[in-house]
């Protein structure tokens, strides 16, 4: 196995891909969004429970779906790290994650904010797989912008 593959398929990713955490429908949720990549068939539904209030804290996050190890692991890790974050913090997390994968220079990299999510950095060497890693994240943005008009019922990274 070469280094790029070793970086991509780290044990944490294989583990979360095979046994995704928070893989369920929340009994009670306030926000939900489907993410779908029609070209590859990856599909997931993200559920969030956000208590109304000045802080708008994400109390619970879960998802259901099917797809490759990268998309499932990314969704699983996302739901883990969303718990307890405010909406503003979740949006910052999205930008940081996007920066990690694409090297977007418009965003100042602060890898320490990403914590465990840094295991997905290996995806950067595989441009065709970035859309897999970001699907759940675009679903997150879609869920948070639930009130806005969206042309489709689902969001996509393709």
């Amino acid at each position, binding site marked *: 196995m070469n280094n790029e593959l070793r970086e991509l398929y780290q044990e944490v990713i294989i583990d979360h891909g095979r046994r995704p955490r928070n893989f369920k429908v929340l009994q009670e949720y306030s926000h939900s969004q489907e993410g779908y990549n029609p070209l*590859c068939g990856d599909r997931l539904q993200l559920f969030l429970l956000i208590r109304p209030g000045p802080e708008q804290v994400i109390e619970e996050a879960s998802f259901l779906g099917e797809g*490759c190890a990268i998309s499932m692991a990314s969704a699983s890790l996302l739901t883990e790290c969303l718990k307890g974050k405010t909406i503003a913090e979740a949006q910052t997390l999205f930008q940081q994650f996007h920066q990690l994968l694409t090297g977007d220079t418009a965003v100042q990299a602060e890898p320490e904010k990403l914590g465990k999510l840094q295991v997905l950095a290996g995806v950067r060497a595989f441009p065709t797989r970035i859309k897999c890693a970001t699907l759940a994240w675009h679903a997150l943005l879609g869920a948070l912008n639930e009130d806005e008009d969206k042309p489709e019922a689902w969001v996509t990274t393709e």
Partner: protein
Amino acid sequence: MNMRDRIPGKETQGLVDNSLTFDIDAVRENFPILGRRVYDQPLVYLDNAATSQKPREVVDCIQTYYLQTNANVHRGVYHLSEEATSAYEASRDKVQRFLNAKSRKEIIFVRGTTEAINLVAHCYAKPLLSPGDEILISTMEHHSNIVPWQIICNQTGATLKVIPINDAGEIEQDAFTTMLNPRCRLLAITQVSNALGTINPVRQMIKQAHQQSIPVLIDGAQAVPHLQVDLQALDADFYAFSGHKVYGPTGIGILYGKQELLEKMKPYQGGGDMISRVTFAHTDYNELPYRFEAGTPNIAGSIGLGSALDYINAIGLDQIARHEQALLVYATEQLSSIDGLRLIGTAKHKAGILSFVMAEAHAHDVSTILDQSGIAIRAGHHCTMPLMAHLGIAATARASLALYNNRADIDALLAGLHEVKRIFK
């Protein structure tokens, strides 16, 4: 130069591999791309159902056309234009002979299979259809043999009917028979499934459809590179294929239509070349096949396609089929030896297409890992989303064979799949 001069076939037969009837190493030498490396590994190209690689002679032919002959066809009263026109029309003759069509007037140059099917949908089927009429397709069709029919069904009130398939991926012939009825205006099916490899018994199906006066379009995109197609024996009313899957360039393909049907059809694209006389009040259309070739055609593409058919003829489609079938048997055995790997598409009659899913890993992960070893396969729904939905899977990995693939390619694929299992253990 004659191809046989460059492919020492018979005399080395048996020394290289008992199953081969031509010298595979010599054939591989004809495809320069097979000599390149990907991630510092030799390229193993197994995505031939998506597009095939091109022999040097096809590339040279296109280059020579642009460097020496380039001019517009059918108009110039000068030497170059005459040369370009003869080369373009000679390719039409080559296609006619290759498919054993009755007349060169039945061979229309289009961009590819997709455009050919759209042409038939708009120029043949649409004017015929009324509410309650039916177009019959099968579960295993490519999107290009579904969506054009959906579009005209929506416009006319006709209904799209879908013939079911069995678990092996074969058309349910009993269901097919019962679905033929007087409201059925056209049967449109693939000869070889791009996702399953199934070779459909189209000759028999055409015969049955004709017994009820139902015309038939055959999607030959996956058949022409692998099987001898004799249009007069087949008796298809329309037949479509793409140049780039038969070792020719992209952007060129063929629609064959029986002359008596084409004569009755009105063109859906107007422009130069497809007319005989134009006034502001009226246009007389050109004769066949030009009526359906509006605008400057893909001259280099059609000449390249002719060159690709020459290449195939020099080796012989029967030889190619024998080679690919032997390799398919070997690859099927090898893939079946992998625990947790399930072949999707196990029809009795198959072309060299191996679709599969693995218990451990998703098709995209399989493809990414194989790619790092220089192995190109396809992962996804193969433009057959309704088929995937029927099978209850989102995606498969697919290895598809061509005349230049060998056992070493299959062995590399096997090694790559074992690597997948190691990573996902």
